[in-house]
């Protein structure tokens, strides 16, 4: 046995280049898996830390539903609920710091967090870098984060002037919080004030400060020792009757944050599984080549008395060595890749991740999948090796059709194993059935594409060879002959390329769909050329910002927009307040049901609502139906007056549209979040400077609609750039497979090459024929991969992901995939081609 193991080692050592390339291929597959798992665990850890930082020791959190916040009455009701030991209210709002002499003007907004200094320490620890904590609930002291202090040049003892609805509020910095502070999403620009002081920011000049704490954004609730959470939550549900609110537990917040990362995590996991698929093809091909190459030796071993099981052990030992080496390197590659991916995600601003976590699970999964898949992939070649007849050693080439069936048949088994493992490991698979269903669909599509390759090989090779034939006819013929020499091997070689390029095209398709979904509403919905956004509700109506904007010469229309939430049938419904007349005048909104004019006029009356058609279908309501919506004043009936194809985007789909009057009078909307400004034809150049000046004066951020589209596109590009990088790992694995296959082809064709050289073929012609062979393989991979990629893209886009059901064919990427396939294949072929060109004729033509 030891002798056979030594033989297995020697077999690997004899083909160092192929062994190395295979190990690299396995390591890339394992690396992407480890990276995906590392990023996934990193996101989980970051979410857990974030939630812990957000809610501290609180057992429940009550969040205001309306912009007006939770009232003093609601706070009293909450504190009186049996089992509630402590309530820690907080006010959160965005504003600006007033510019002061001696400090540079910082235009970025800050988040003001008002806390109860006596209750807050019992809920969470505010970690101070220096200074002291807040003392009385109404003191004029403030804490700032280290980040804010660094960017704005703030020091302990400095006075801060904070802009509010009245005169700027002056507070003194008494402490500096570590790092970014407690507020997620503030970018570290947080000022913490006593809650009563923070409340003053909402008091206009001339008004008196309220006697009690109100307008609270959220309340963290600590339960009495032993109080059951479910029971207290039910009691809160019965006790809080004055206002709509959202009651959540820490795990709800964590689940919500996890849900927001599900798309990227499941896509990364799917890419990892697909990269392993490509790696498995490489391994299967390599092992099959090894068996074909050594078939005579194996036959001789059998003739010398070796048992079938011993031959199997030889092949399995080779696979084990490859798998262990590849997995080991893959863990290192994956760790590096995980840090790169985490940094990319952090830099892109898409996800809050502090760093990857390469835990024992990721390491074990990496080693297990690397070794496991290698062994599974080696089973068929091992079985074939064991089946070599001692008397058949002279039959080098077996029945190719049978080989193709054996290769592809076993490929199905390998894919089934990887697919099952992938579905089990897929994040979110347990909660959202659509994710594993989509993953299985993608796998089946890729598998079908690979299995169809041998069937279509001849016509595809002819088609892909046409451009080459126009220039290099002989080389093209020889290349096609070589490609068809072993359809099984060609299938596996092209298969990996098909998978890699399909994923590149699919991601481009999904990205295109996402871009269309994310930006199409701008032209379809927004009644303006420019959008001015406010960080706090901005006044509307006489003397309001919309009136001031409309009075600027050259502005045709300035309309307010405000987003808020509605409580309908126990769920949160995202809504946008609009003025119907303005949309009617500007021709926005595409109605799919209901009369457009009547519907928009109805919005300016009372009790009307317009729904996006997909959301109406989900809610099961139609035009003419009435929706009972909960408010602090009780239930309000809204009649559905129309359905639109597309509306403003919300977190969970397009928002419903409510008239401005209803929004302010019934749903607590205090002002506009944004203003859409439409310029009169040909007047934008004159009017825009005045609009922008007013925006600066009113602390509004002006963004041309085109810039919004560009920013959305840029954000998507950054996110998909990372996914493309992972998909390219599969393409690189395919390139390694091409190197292996062409090297093997060259070895097998050495006599033919020798004959051609003896017949007067030059080195450069031989070199070109191998390059053309690679080019044809690459073109086939590109063609099949593109078609498959478009189908996978449709499946991924239409499966309920962020991209929505609409899919586009990414023609530039399709062209790029074909060019990439050809170029990469030809690059991979450079060394085998050189090897072929240098085949010494005497050695090549030597007799048996």
């Amino acid at each position, binding site marked *: 046995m030891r002798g056979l193991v030594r033989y297995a080692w020697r077999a690997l050592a004899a083909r160092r280049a192929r062994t190395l390339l295979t190990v690299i291929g396995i390591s890339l597959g394992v690396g992407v898996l480890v990276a995906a798992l590392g990023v996934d665990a990193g996101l989980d850890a970051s979410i857990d830390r974030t939630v812990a930082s957000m809610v501290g020791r609180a057992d429940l959190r009550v969040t205001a539903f309306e912009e007006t916040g939770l009232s003093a009455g609601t706070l009293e009701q909450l504190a009186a609920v049996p089992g509630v030991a402590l309530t820690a209210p907080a006010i959160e709002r965005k504003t600006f710091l007033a510019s002061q002499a001696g400090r540079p003007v910082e235009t970025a907004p800050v988040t003001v967090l008002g806390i109860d200094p006596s209750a807050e320490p019992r809920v969470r620890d505010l970690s101070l870098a220096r200074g002291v904590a807040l003392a009385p609930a109404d003191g004029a002291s403030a804490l700032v984060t280290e980040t804010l202090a660094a960017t704005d040049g703030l020091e302990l003892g400095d006075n801060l002037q904070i802009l509010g609805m009245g005169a700027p509020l002056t507070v003194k910095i008494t402490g500096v919080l570590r790092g970014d502070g407690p507020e997620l999403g503030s970018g570290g620009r947080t000022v913490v004030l006593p809650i009563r002081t923070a409340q003053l920011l909402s008091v206009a000049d001339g008004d008196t400060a309220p006697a009690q704490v109100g307008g609270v954004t959220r309340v963290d609730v600590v339960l009495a020792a032993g109080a059951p959470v479910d029971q207290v939550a039910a009691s809160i549900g019965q006790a809080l009757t004055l206002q709509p609110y959202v009651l959540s537990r820490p795990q709800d917040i964590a689940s919500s944050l996890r849900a927001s990362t599900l798309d990227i995590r499941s896509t990364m996991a799917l890419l990892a599984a697909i990269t392993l698929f490509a790696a498995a093809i490489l391994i299967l091909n390599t092992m099959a080549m090894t068996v074909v190459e050594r078939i005579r030796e194996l036959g001789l071993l059998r003739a010398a008395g070796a048992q079938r099981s011993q031959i199997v052990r030889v092949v399995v030992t080779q696979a084990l060595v490859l798998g262990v080496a590849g997995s080991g390197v893959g863990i290192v590659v994956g760790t590096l890749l995980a840090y790169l991916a985490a940094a990319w995600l952090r830099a892109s601003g898409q996800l809050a991740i502090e760093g990857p976590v390469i835990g024992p699970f990721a390491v074990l999964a990496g080693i297990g999948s690397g070794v496991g898949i290698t062994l599974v992939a080696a089973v068929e070649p091992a079985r074939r090796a064991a089946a070599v007849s001692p008397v058949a050693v002279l039959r080098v080439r077996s029945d190719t059709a049978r080989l193709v069936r054996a290769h592809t048949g076993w490929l199905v088994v390998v894919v089934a194993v990887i697919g099952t493992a992938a579905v089990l490991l897929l994040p979110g698979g347990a909660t959202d059935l659509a994710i594993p269903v989509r993953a299985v669909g993608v796998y089946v599509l890729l598998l079908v594409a690979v299995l169809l390759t041998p069937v279509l090989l001849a016509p595809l090779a002819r088609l892909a060879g046409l451009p080459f034939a126009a220039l290099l006819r002989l080389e093209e013929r020889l290349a096609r*002959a070589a490609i068809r020499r072993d359809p099984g091997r060609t299938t596996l070689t092209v298969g990996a390329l098909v998978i890699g390029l399909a994923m590149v095209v699919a991601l481009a398709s999904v990205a295109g769909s996402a871009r269309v979904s994310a930006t199409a509403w701008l032209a379809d919905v927004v009644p303006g050329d420019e959008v001015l956004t406010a960080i706090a509700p901005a006044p509307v109506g006489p003397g309001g910002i919309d009136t001031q904007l409309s009075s600027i010469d050259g502005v045709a229309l300035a309309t307010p927009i405000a987003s808020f939430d509605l409580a309908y049938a126990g769920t949160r419904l995202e809504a946008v307040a609009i003025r119907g007349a303005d949309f009617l005048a500007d021709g926005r909104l595409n109605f799919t049901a209901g009369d457009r004019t009547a519907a928009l006029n109805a919005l300016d009356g009372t009790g009307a609502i317009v729904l996006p058609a997909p959301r109406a279908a989900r809610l099961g309501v139609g035009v003419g139906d009435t929706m009972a919506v909960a408010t602090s004043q009780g239930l309000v009936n809204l009649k559905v007056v129309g359905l639109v194809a597309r509306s403003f985007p919300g977190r969970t789909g397009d928002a419903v549209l409510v008239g401005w009057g209803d929004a302010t009078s019934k749903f607590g909307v205090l002002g506009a979040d944004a203003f859409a400004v439409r310029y009169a034809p040909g007047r934008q150049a004159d009017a825009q400077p005045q609009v922008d000046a007013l925006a600066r004066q009113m602390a509004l951020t002006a963004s041309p609609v085109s810039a919004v589209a560009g920013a959305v596109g840029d954000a998507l590009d950054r996110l998909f750039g990372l996914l493309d990088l992972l998909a390219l790992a599969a393409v690189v694995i395919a390139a390694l497979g091409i190197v292996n296959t062409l090297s093997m082809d060259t070895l097998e064709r050495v006599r033919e090459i020798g004959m051609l050289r003896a017949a007067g073929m030059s080195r450069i012609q031989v070199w070109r024929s191998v390059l053309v062979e690679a080019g044809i393989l690459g073109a086939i991979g590109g063609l099949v991969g593109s078609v498959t990629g478009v189908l996978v893209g449709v499946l991924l886009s239409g499966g309920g992901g962020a991209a929505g059901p609409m899919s586009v064919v990414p023609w530039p990427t399709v062209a790029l995939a074909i060019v990439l396939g050809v170029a990469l294949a030809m690059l991979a072929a450079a060394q085998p081609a050189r090897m072929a060109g240098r085949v010494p004729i005497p050695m090549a033509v030597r007799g048996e």
Partner: protein
Amino acid sequence: MTFQPTTADEASAPRRTVLPILEARSLTKQYRMPGEIVEAVRGVSLSVMPGEFVALMGPSGSGKSTLLQLLGGLDQPSSGEVLLEGEPIGRLSDSDATRLRRERTGFVFQSFNLVPLMNVVENVALPFTIAGQDPRSHELAGRVREAIALVDLTGKERHRPDQLSAGEQQRVAVARAIVTRPALLFADEPTGNLDFRTGLDILDALWRTCMERGQTIVLVTHDAKAAAYADRVFVVGDGQIQDEIVLGRRTDHAAAPLIARLALLGL
């Protein structure tokens, strides 16, 4: 002036009033192996006349194939000189050697090495295609037809290699080697992979090219029956020409005279 075939009764060597088409002078070939230098060819000198059928005969490892590769310009000698039609070919650059093989020599090997995707016509026309010529042109197409007819494969022009028997495949290889009308045709154990009957067919085909077209042939073989087709036989052993047996041109190709001579030599 070309070599005039003699009658079967004339057991004399071809007339040597013309210049040899191929000449080897003190040819050696050494291979450096770990710890030793192996001399595969040691000081061989010989000449081949135009139209002559010459055989290099010897046992395995005698150096006969290496000698053929040196004579055909497939390999470079360590020392000595090879002259083809009076021109030295032993030190040609790769591109000049390639041109020489393309235009002036033809090779048939033990393995047929046909291109599987190409049919008989395309395989035979391969040297023209390699040279960038259009094998469908009137003249070249005629030469392809002629070569196919000479190896008796007319009617199988559209067959692919996998539709031909081993003997037919080797005949395609012969046709491919002679289609360019090379000055010299080298055949290295062309019957090595074939059964006795099929092997004779190949030797007959080579013989016909020699007889009907005046093709000069250098055949390497270890088989006395194959060597018996030659006008002259160089007996190769230990990297040297050990003897030269002149059989003359005969039509019966009986191996007995050769075997008798070999027996006299103790081979």
